[in-house]
């Protein structure tokens, strides 16, 4: 692998060179020494102006297919699009099979569609930091809209999705108890609910049920929040994007977008704090290989107290 200076990578990002964008994301994801320099050199104006969409939902609801049809429609509207597709790593081997691209291959040769698959790498922290930095690199390369796609289960996914300006939850008929389980969590943070696979039986009932949950959100913004799609046939996609743009205007005028960006910045910062401190404490743990203290909390406090600053 050729070694690229951060300056070369930054120039490449501005010129929308796919190799430079891909390399820069790796440098940041792997927290290599050039990461800070790259992130510091990104165009803040472009980052501010990009729209970040979070797409989540249970496995099999059609997130990747919906993402692909959203890409098609955004491209028709001359938008450059970035996609961060997140899948879980194996907790045993640490490896992962990242297959979200399969449904997006029709865009593989489009230079204005930047896709990056990312594994969770079993981190408690760090994923928010990596995903957030990837969004910034894509935005700095001129992406107008960036989609973060992740399976909607678990706290870490919820944290990632909150990096987005607008969150879309994708459901499909026939998930039953999964949807019941999600009501308490992600449904509360979702701005939009997409009932995908609308040609399947049970779709109408699901939409009506969801509309009851979203009735308050719809009333406060006067924008439809529960929408139907058949992503595999590109059906309902235009209306979804129109609604997303109306909602974008709505959250810009009442400062919700600014507030969300501040919150995202805080959670990314906290994540970076853990990322930056982790190597130091991993080192301390190794040195303390035969611990006298067997209570983890007390041991942690002692390690922090005994770790040099800086």
């Amino acid at each position, binding site marked *: 692998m050729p070694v690229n200076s951060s300056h070369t990578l930054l120039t490449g990002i501005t010129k929308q060179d796919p190799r430079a964008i891909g390399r820069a994301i790796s440098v940041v994801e*792997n927290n290599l020494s050039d990461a800070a320099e790259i992130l510091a050199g990104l165009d803040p104006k472009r980052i501010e102006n990009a729209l970040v969409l979070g797409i989540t939902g249970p496995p099999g609801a059609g997130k990747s297919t919906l993402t692909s049809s959203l890409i098609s429609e955004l491209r028709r509207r001359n938008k450059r699009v970035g996609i961060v597709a997140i899948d879980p790593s194996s907790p045993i081997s640490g490896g992962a*099979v*990242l297959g979200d691209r399969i449904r997006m291959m029709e865009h593989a*040769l489009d230079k204005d569609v930047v896709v990056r698959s990312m594994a969770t790498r079993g981190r408690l922290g760090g994923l928010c930091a990596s995903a957030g930095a990837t969004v910034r690199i894509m935005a700095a390369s001129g992406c107008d809209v960036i989609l973060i796609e992740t399976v909607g289960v678990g706290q870490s996914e919820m944290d990632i999705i909150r990096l987005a300006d607008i969150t879309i939850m994708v459901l499909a008929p026939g998930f039953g108890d999964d949807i019941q389980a999600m009501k308490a969590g992600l449904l509360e943070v979702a701005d939009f609910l997409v009932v995908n696979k609308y040609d399947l039986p049970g779709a109408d009932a699901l939409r009506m049920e969801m509309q009851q949950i979203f009735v308050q959100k719809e009333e406060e913004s006067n924008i439809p929040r529960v929408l139907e799609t058949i992503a595999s046939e590109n059906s309902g996609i235009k209306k979804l994007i129109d609604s997303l743009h109306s909602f974008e205007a709505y959250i810009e005028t009442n400062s919700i977008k600014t507030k969300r960006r501040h919150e995202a910045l805080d959670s990314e910062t906290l994540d970076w704090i853990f990322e930056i401190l982790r190597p130091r404490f991993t080192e301390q743990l190794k040195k303390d290989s035969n611990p006298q203290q067997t209570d983890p909390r007390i041991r942690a406090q002692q390690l922090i107290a005994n770790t040099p600053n800086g």
Partner: protein
Amino acid sequence: MTTPYRVLIGKPGLDGHDRGAKFIARALRDEGFEVIYTGIRRTAAEIAATAIQEDVDVIGLSSLSGAHLRLFPEVIKELKARGAADIPVLGGGVIPDEDMEALLAAGMKAIFTPGTPAATIIKSFSDACEQ
């Protein structure tokens, strides 16, 4: 913590038999690799463009259709055209002995045929990533 290697597994051309490709993808995952799987029926250009976006350390191609002599070198050509000739390409499938030399001469790092032990294949991927 070491950083996982990133691998692209792709099937160029028209054959739709992806059992081998998926087997290798899973075997690599179980050894700690991050595997980007592109699915079947990809063009060489799609595979090269994807490998660059995903910044993979190595590409593994699978072909069972007999078109490997054309399809595998085509991927190498597309990588070169995109300034990514440094990404090593490995290949596997139903490949007669007499085609091996031509593929290696075309720039393939290694070729695997039916019966190659998974451990040998994984070792080749690791070696290619380390280079």
